[in-house]
């Protein structure tokens, strides 16, 4: 017998589900995006600097003065009643009417995804999701060893016709999806919104087939143009929709509070699942939210965010039009935090990220939004977390590396490099560049072409 020895000492201890938990090169790359000199368009971060510090101080003082013992104590698993009322108010602002009693307060919206999987998914079960899907849902689905089937999207959101074909196929294979995961409004990462006819059809399909939908709606109130569409939950009435909401994007992700409203039997299981996970969400955070909503200005703050993010979105759209080559395409979100850009298929955005990092700019490679290796030529860009100057400069840097790769590929394949409409030079003083629209010389492109 040979002395064969498996040297991964801990490998034998890992649960089988960890084999699909990815510790990839991409993750190591993403860690570098946090360096201070990097302009990161990679995060999904709201701009918390817009929340007045004095308001936070006053509210926390108030909580400490009036409710100290409760703030430091455990809370009920389902959440405090006062928070349930705040949640009902937020949902009412989106045209939904719920009884605060039917709400489960969670530790961020992310916990809802985890609890839904925990409640519904056995290894090998099918989850239907959008293509691309929320990158943060990917590890959750993977951890429960789900078989994720991703449905293509277009400008009107998930292709429900493709969904129906897929459901037919799965039925023939004797497989019934446990749930359909969708972010119908200002989808992360694609930035598109599901049209009303598709929403109606999706809800109908779920009802006909008795399938559950997990409607993830973190950004619904962050609409920058156009009319709000009814949520899936309001169309369905709640029989087949598990609704996920969160305070992360309308108040703060740091307080880690989200919620779910689900059909009663499902909610009950999720409540038990939450007990096992963390007993309850932060009491301090809950009392902070209660105090904040009692002030009555929460909608004003969202209006501030809308104005700010609308401007940043426009800045990013303008910068993309200026700096990306004609081979690139990107979405025009009517709300939310993200733009999804797609490059020629010979550009791999994971590699491009490495090149981008050498120029101190970062984004999320598209592959992070797929479970099947697709998305290699796409990227997610966030416009909410950084200011206008950083957006312009970040996109300019991305445009620079993309153009370099397009030109190199053209050289390698003998195709002429596309005409370089020379992007504007890097502003030396961003503040100045913001004010002055400097004219550009017309002969630039020609010179470069020579």
């Amino acid at each position, binding site marked *: 017998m040979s002395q064969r020895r498996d040297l*991964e000492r801990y490998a034998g201890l890992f649960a089988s589900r960890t084999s699909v938990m990815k510790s990839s090169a991409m993750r190591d790359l993403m860690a570098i995006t946090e360096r201070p000199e990097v302009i990161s368009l990679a995060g999904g971060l709201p701009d918390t600097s817009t929340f007045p510090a004095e308001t936070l101080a006053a509210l926390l003082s108030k909580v400490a003065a009036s409710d100290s013992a409760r703030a430091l104590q455990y809370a009920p698993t389902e959440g405090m009643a006062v928070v349930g009322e705040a949640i009902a108010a937020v949902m009412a602002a989106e045209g939904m009417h719920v009884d605060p009693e039917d709400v489960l307060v969670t530790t961020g919206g992310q916990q809802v995804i985890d609890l839904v999987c925990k409640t519904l998914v056995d290894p090998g079960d099918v989850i239907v999701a959008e293509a691309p899907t929320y990158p943060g849902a990917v590890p959750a689905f993977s951890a429960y060893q789900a078989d994720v089937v991703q449905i293509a999207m277009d400008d009107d959101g998930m292709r429900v016709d493709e969904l129906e074909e897929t459901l037919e196929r799965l039925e023939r294979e004797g497989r019934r999806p446990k749930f359909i995961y969708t972010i119908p409004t200002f989808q992360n990462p694609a930035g598109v919104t599901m049209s009303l006819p598709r929403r109606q059809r999706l809800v109908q399909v779920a009802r006909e087939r008795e399938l559950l939908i997990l409607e993830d709606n973190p950004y619904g109130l962050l609409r920058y143009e156009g009319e709000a569409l009814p949520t899936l939950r309001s169309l369905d009435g709640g029989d087949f929709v598990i609704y996920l909401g969160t305070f992360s994007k309308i108040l703060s992700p740091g307080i880690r509070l989200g919620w779910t409203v689900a059909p009663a039997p499902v909610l009950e299981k999720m409540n038990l699942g939450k007990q096992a996970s963390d007993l309850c969400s932060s009491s301090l955070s809950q009392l902070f939210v209660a105090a904040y909503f009692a002030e009555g200005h929460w909608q004003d703050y969202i209006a501030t965010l809308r104005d700010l993010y609308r401007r940043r979105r426009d800045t990013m759209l303008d910068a993309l039009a200026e700096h990306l080559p004609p081979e690139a395409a990107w979405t025009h979100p009517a709300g939310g935090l993200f733009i999804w850009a797609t490059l020629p298929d010979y550009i791999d955005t994971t590699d491009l990220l490495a090149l981008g990092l050498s120029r101190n700019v970062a984004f999320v490679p598209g592959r992070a939004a797929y479970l099947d290796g697709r998305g290699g030529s796409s990227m997610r860009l966030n416009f909410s977390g950084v200011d206008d100057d950083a957006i312009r400069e970040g996109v300019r840097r991305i445009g620079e590396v993309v153009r370099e790769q397009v030109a190199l590929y053209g050289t390698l394949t003998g195709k002429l490099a596309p005409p370089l409409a020379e992007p504007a030079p890097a502003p030396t003083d961003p503040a100045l560049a913001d004010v002055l629209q400097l004219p550009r010389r017309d002969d630039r492109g020609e010179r470069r072409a020579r």
Partner: protein
Amino acid sequence: MTARARDRGDGLEPDELRRAGGTVAVLKGGRSLERQVSLRSGARVEDALERLGHEVVGIDVGHDLVARLREAAPDVAFVALHGRDGEDGIVQELLEVLGIPYTASGVSACMRCSDKVVAKHAMRDAGLPTPDFYAFTETAFKELGAGDALGAIEERLRFPIVVKPADQGSALGIRFAASAADVPAAIVAAFSYSEKVLLERHVHGRELAVSILGDEPLPIVEAVPREEDFYDFAARYTIGRTAFVCPAELGDELTARAQKLALDVFRLLGCRGFARVDLMLEEGTNELYVLESNVIPGLTETSLLPQAAEAAGISFDELIGRIVELAAVEPVPG
């Protein structure tokens, strides 16, 4: 002690260093794409050094490196940096200037090894086997029409061809081109990581890693992909998806041959202290080929060198102790 070590230009007296406890600065992190791996290596090294009785100063390498080294005035710098910024000789040059003995290879060996193309030329010139290759800069393609020579290169190397960045440590940017159609995108990908790109004949066979400590080869580690998809490089770097076998089942003759080859490479490239030489054992021919020599191989929980040391009965702490003892600076000229 530091001054004497500096003048001597060779390893420190082990007893001397240990008795004194000695301050060791652990250089980690930095700006490279392998920052995370480096931080894990560095943390583990720091723990070991503390257990060995050293005073440890961890330094996340950045703009203030020289200032922090001057402030810490360590007896030895343990270089736990991976990737370009730590293995290309620049940090080593600074340590030379400051007269601080440091672990692993010196400046010139770092420069030779961190550029796979330079290393491969040296091996080929010395008659050590390395897969056939051609290498070009982006300038060659853009300004000298090197793209027109791709056909000839492909003909000589035969598909599949491995395309890799010349100076990227991990598997980042490595692509297999199965046909001519794959080559341009593979080259574009590789240039994302490096100014220079290597097109190399693909050697199909077993992947072997021979670590050298001091001037002794350690037991050989074989990386065995658990899944059939040979080309899935992500799998190779995901815990649990690659099995490492040590000592590799090669038989005495082959083991000796691989170890000798690795040691020859180590010496040829002028490595010092420790290094890991990656080889391919070609299926069918049983020929060994050298892919590269890593001057600062990973020291994390799952890294190959610590596994090899353990198979040789050398604990992680002992390994780190030995590496520190082998630290040195070049003698100051004149």
